[in-house]
């Protein structure tokens, strides 16, 4: 895979050398993605091949105005003089058009300490080799099995696989990695009157089509859940003892807290967390990680700015230790970057972004957690969330709240549910964690309302006090 980048590597090195003569620093990130998706639903069968990252190059330079970038998707050695000329001319024009009063944000030139990385993707079954026909036969079988259940409007089954190669070159760095993730989902729909309810079961792996083996067995539980939703009741607003499934824990980790410790927000004074470094922000049961220690969809050896990744402990037994950081923010804050400079595609800017973000496990069993609640809810099936780094407000949506009374699930279902409140209040109220963590890498994360990057998040079952509406 990706021989095209192998052929271009010598010319890319020449490009960096040519830019080094004109600018204070130069680097290039080359990206090539092979994407394929398969889907079966009432709308029909489809095979897609347009991924998010595509094929392209980001050329980064530093001049007296600071950091500047040029994104292109066509490159050859013959184009080097034109690229250098375009960057000199248009970046100067862009600077000249700036309104009065705008000054450069002071940024040090990257140290560019030497690094060499070579890493190949790990997978058992390449979905492309498994073949379109075999995958669609499987998806249709899963779908037909779901459609046998009375009351199901539709059963959408989809799989997507992204294989990607990234090369980062600067004067002192030569990084090269291939990577493959596969995602899948079963979505059941049921209808009553004009209202359509849906239930979503995601699957993800840092790997290939070996993921698909576990899907079929879940069909009965997915169809049961969506039919239960037809009889769901609106939530009575209030603060309750809640148990979050690992998916919901992951959404709280990611949306409610993770975005608030992205350190480009520290540079902008947009994150309340900046004032709480070294302080208790959560229960001592809470330890939070981000990085490449776990093998999930967002595990890379280096980020989109050429910074090696690692395991960042954000919260250590309740104490906020650090945030996660991209290279530019690190230089502005005077801290080491953590390998979290990520881009939606080679056509976009890098920001501080999460990778695999999760809470560590505890020691309780799920049964003990349910039994500990007099009245409350088991929250399941997250649907969306939104960050609020400035004020640590929570907005997360879940599809299902299962009522717990006197330590037992009653069978009553409430939906849809909005989780609100103040993040540290929720995290400080965490009183139990289950003994096993699960991560889900099926989603893409936006920064605000754009800049979608692949992430995973998760944790154990978590008991906390949460305001529901």
């Amino acid at each position: 895979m990706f021989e095209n980048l192998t052929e271009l590597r010598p010319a890319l090195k020449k490009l960096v050398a040519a830019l080094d003569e004109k600018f204070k620093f130069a680097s290039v990130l080359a990206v090539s993605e092979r994407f394929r998706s398969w889907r079966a639903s009432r709308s029909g069968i489809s095979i897609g091949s347009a991924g998010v990252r595509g094929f392209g190059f980001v050329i980064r330079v530093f001049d007296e105005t600071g950091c500047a970038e040029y994104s292109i998707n066509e490159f050859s050695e013959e184009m080097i003089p034109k690229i250098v000329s375009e960057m000199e001319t248009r970046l100067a024009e862009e600077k000249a058009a700036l309104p009065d009063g705008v000054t450069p944000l002071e940024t040090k030139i990257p140290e560019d300490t030497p690094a060499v990385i070579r890493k190949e993707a790990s997978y058992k079954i390449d979905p492309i080799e498994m073949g379109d026909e075999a995958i669609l036969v499987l998806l249709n079988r899963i779908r037909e099995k779901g459609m046998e259940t009375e009351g199901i409007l539709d059963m959408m089954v989809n799989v997507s696989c992204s294989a990607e190669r990234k090369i980062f070159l600067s004067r002192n760095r030569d990084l090269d990695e291939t990577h493959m993730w596969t995602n899948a989902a079963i979505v059941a729909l049921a209808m009553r009157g004009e209202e359509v309810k849906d239930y979503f079961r995601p699957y993800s792996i840092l790997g290939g089509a070996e993921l698909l083996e576990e899907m079929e067995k879940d069909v009965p539980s997915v169809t049961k859940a969506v039919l239960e939703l037809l009889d769901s009741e609106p939530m009575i607003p209030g603060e309750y003892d809640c148990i979050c499934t690992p998916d919901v824990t992951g959404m709280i980790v990611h949306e409610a807290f993770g975005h608030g410790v992205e350190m480009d927000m520290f540079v902008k004074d947009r994150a309340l967390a900046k004032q709480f470094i070294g302080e208790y922000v959560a229960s001592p049961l809470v330890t939070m990680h981000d990085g490449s220690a776990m093998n999930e969809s967002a595990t890379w050896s280096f980020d989109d700015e050429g910074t090696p990744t690692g395991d960042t402990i954000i919260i250590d037994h309740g104490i906020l230790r650090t945030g996660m950081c991209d290279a530019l923010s690190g230089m502005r804050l005077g801290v080491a970057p953590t390998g979290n400079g990520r881009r939606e595609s080679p056509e976009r800017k890098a920001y501080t972004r999460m990778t695999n973000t999760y809470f560590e496990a505890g020691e309780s069993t799920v049964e003990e957690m349910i039994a500990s609640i007099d009245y409350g809810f088991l929250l399941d099936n997250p649907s969306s969330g939104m960050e609020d780094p400035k004020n640590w407000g929570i907005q997360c949506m879940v599809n299902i709240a299962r009522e717990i009374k006197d330590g037992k699930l009653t069978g009553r279902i409430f939906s849809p549910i909005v989780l609100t409140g103040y993040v540290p209040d929720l995290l400080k109220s965490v009183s139990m964690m289950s003994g096993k963590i699960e991560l889900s890498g099926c989603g893409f994360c936006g920064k605000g309302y754009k800049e979608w990057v692949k992430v995973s998040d998760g944790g154990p079952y978590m008991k906390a006090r949460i305001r529901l509406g």
Partner: protein
Amino acid sequence: MEKRILDLLNKAGIEEYRITFFTERTAELFFVKKQLDTRRIKDVAKYLVTVFRIEEKGGEKLKGAIDVMVLSSMSDDEIVKAFKDAYFAAQFALNPYYDAPKPVTAAPAFKTGRLAELAPEKAAGLMAEALFAADNAEGAFINSAEVFISKKTMRIVTSTGTDVSWTDAKASGEYVVQAKEPEDVEMYRQFAYTELETEELTRQVKEQLTFIHDRARAERILKSGNYDLILTGENTAEVLSFYLSRSSAYMIYPGYSRWAVGDDVQGEAAGEKMELTLRAKAPYSGEGIPMIDRKLLDKGELKLAHGGARFCGYLGLEPTGDYDSFSCDNAGSMSFEEMKKRPCLWAVTFSDFQMDAFSGHFGGEIRLAYLIDGEKAIPVTGGSVNGSLLEAQKDIVFSTDRFKSEHYSGPYAMMLRGVAVAGTDAE
């Protein structure tokens, strides 16, 4: 490159295809307060080829389609192989047959106006100037901002005879406004214009700086209950987008929506009956279908199901192309100021306001709302809205004040009766 792709499609023996040629040039500016964080430029050219395969199986005519992204750096042999692989794969993605859109040939449609004519780098500077022009409010300021100027060319060529092309230009971005006293708070806002709307951007920033001033002194006193809820601007557009989604052939064909042309989709309504029009943002759809403005709802009655060739074809309808822009043509029955003269909750901003086209539910966490008792308007924050449009559509009031954005034009405000709100009293 265009001729090369056509020649190679011929060489690969592909009889039905659609080629989309796309180029984009951008200038982008990123600010932290009034300091330049990063500046970027972009030049990309993309060639997307959709390969169709038509077959008959068991007496049924079927059609499959696979996209191929062609790179200029690919060799002829690689491109031909990619086309042949796509044609092979299409046999596994066969669906009921549908006709290709009617062929259209036309002279290129060039976007005119100052935004289209200026170099993106220059236009980016002018939009940045407009953005910061309002940044002189007392106690409130722009925390950070991003400005994007994009100039695009599109050409669609199909094996069935379509050959259309057009250019487009867009100025878009986002900014965060902040106030530090008495509480340190911020609000996020996006903008998108098809012209160089510098004055409108300055006006919008000024308005946001006023809102953030109130947000800083907003109290967490909202009680749970049912409120007459006022939504404004983009939130009005988000709720009304329900009708756009539910009337799409994409939702009707698989049965996710049971709407049919002629249905009174709003049902018995004590308030306004909906008047909506689909608005064409580009001269052609991604399939090369000419896009025109089309009436969608007339007094709540569905006049049209809309969509591309495949799903409209399945429903026996003329394809309209895919719309993401609409207007609400209701003139409104009272001014926004009159609307606020009765007890209500005006929810100005949410952390993320969403309308679910499947369930009909809308909601989000409130960042700034005004609790209005008919006289005073008290800024409040916290709590969440959780409403059902299927219920609320029975009694909607629109303002006579108007609002226009990239995807919507129509009443600035709508009032929905008795919407459930979870207050901060439960904290």
